[in-house]
């Protein structure tokens, strides 16, 4: 992993971009990394475009501004691509993961981005495992897989702890969310 990994999450209000960035940050912190996880707050409306960020590093991070040139972009809602330049500022040798049924090669064409493009049907996985479209957990798994941050086994252990805290009042959803992570590791594909 690079010394500093910067991630930008694009989603819509209600899809859990902020939650995913925080879960990733907390899991990485648990593993000894220095992290930041923060949303870009606007008016909070269901369905409105939202952005969240992560910085993950082996050293303390003193920078406190938004991320303009991310190493990785995560798109939780493919309909955002029509209205927002999700690849804006993304490093030429960066990576982008899109939640879509579309194969990665086709998405790459659509985005016109020369770096690595990955796709995952996060809505499909979530609907099958949780009965509802919460694309954030599968996309979280895809991020860990694509960045080689942790092995699946390592990450499952880390995220189990976070889920136990987050879903203390809804323990029945933990198994489904873990299954989402496991499947996303197996199903995220590049072109």
């Amino acid at each position, binding site marked *: 992993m690079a010394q500093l990994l910067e991630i930008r999450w694009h989603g819509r209000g209600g899809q859990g971009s902020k939650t995913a960035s925080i879960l990733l*940050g907390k899991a990485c912190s648990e593993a000894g990394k220095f*992290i930041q996880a923060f949303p870009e707050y606007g008016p909070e409306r269901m369905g409105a475009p939202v952005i969240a960020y992560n910085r993950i590093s082996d050293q303390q991070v003193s920078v*406190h501004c938004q991320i303009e040139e991310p190493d990785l972009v995560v798109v939780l809602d493919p309909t955002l691509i029509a209205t927002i330049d999700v690849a804006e500022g993304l490093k030429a040798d960066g990576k982008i993961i899109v939640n879509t049924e579309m194969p990665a090669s086709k998405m790459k064409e659509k985005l016109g981005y020369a770096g690595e493009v990955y796709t995952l049907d996060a809505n499909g996985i979530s609907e099958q495992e949780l009965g509802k479209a919460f694309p954030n957990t599968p996309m979280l798994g895809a991020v860990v897989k694509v960045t080689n941050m942790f092995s699946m086994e390592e990450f499952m252990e880390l995220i189990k702890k976070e889920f136990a805290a987050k879903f203390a009042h809804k323990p029945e959803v933990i198994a489904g969310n873990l299954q989402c992570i496991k499947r996303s590791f197996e199903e995220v594909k590049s072109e």
Partner: protein
Amino acid sequence: MGNRIALTGNEAVALGMKQIAPDVVAAYPITPQTEVVQIFSQYVADGDVDTEFVTVESEHSAMSAALGASAAGARAMTATSSNGLELMFEVVNITASLRLPIVMPIVNRAITGPINIHCDHSDVMTIRDSSWILLFGENAQEAYDNLLMANRIAEHSDILLPVAVNMDGFIISHAVENIEIVEDEVVKEFVGDYYPEKYLLDAANPITMGPVDLQDYLFEHKRQQIEAIKKVSGVVRQVSQEFAELTGRHYDLFEEYRLDDAEVALIAIGSTAGTAKAAIDNLREQGIKVGLLKIRLYRPFPAKEIVEALKGVKTIGVMDRAESYSNTGGPLYADIRAAMYDVGGTAQVMNIVYGIGGRDMTVRDLENLITQLQKVTETGEIEERIIHYGVRD
């Protein structure tokens, strides 16, 4: 200590409050309030802390209730932000004048008009002349650490003044970062129990607080307040020293970053100081001698020490995240200019007003600024002494 966890600034400060376990916390959820009191109220509801949590009907009442509790002899806290602080304003001044050592985290956000909930320092700057002690932190760790030290400073027998612990709204308050937590027992011992020397519920030694105090005595009481203010720096240093022995984390009145041989210096408050460090590292690699002075204790203002630290600097860029609408720049700029006058040096002092209403300040922005300041160092020419950085024309 190795107790590193990931929390938001709000969570870190609420946790610190739980560890301090004040006798009374009074709060009102004005918009924008902070999550600090929301999280703290959950601790109270869950029985994790035995603080008396007073839900009041406004921020004015929150500070009034804290005042009453503190006057009665209790250790009292509240927390606020932005317009909440403005609504408290009358009582904020009274608590300081009554010498009540209340502690209050402030999440710094723009004052409404038009509506904005994001970070700047326009809220806290309105109480800079209130004789509250104002501490600022760069990140969640410093907000937490400042909070753990605040009671010791406020309640010191030479001081007896309220302390506000400031952190940047959203940028710190809502961002998750790693912080090192001090164990509950260690905090308890460090902060200690509170035994006020004089208080209203001391029936054996009855006193009056805040009676009529006209032209015959008010001046003398204000004089006492000024004498206490003179001793704040020393107490802050002493408490910080003890804290360092406990945690290994060193704090002073301000932080000097690569300032020793600097020809250009930025002076900043809050989270932007951290971003500035990255910009400074980058430009140092290009041979620009630039450093940073980060304010921790803003009121009272450690003018003499700051001037000493800036010796040898040729161009100073003072960064204000608030305007004073005086045509003489922001509040920190006025303080620095006044302090520099006494030494009669030749340093150029410029003002950069930035980040109003949460406008982002990136590493590149800071590099641009430093480059501009470096140019002033080389040419001695200044086009505009007060810059509003990043604003559209």
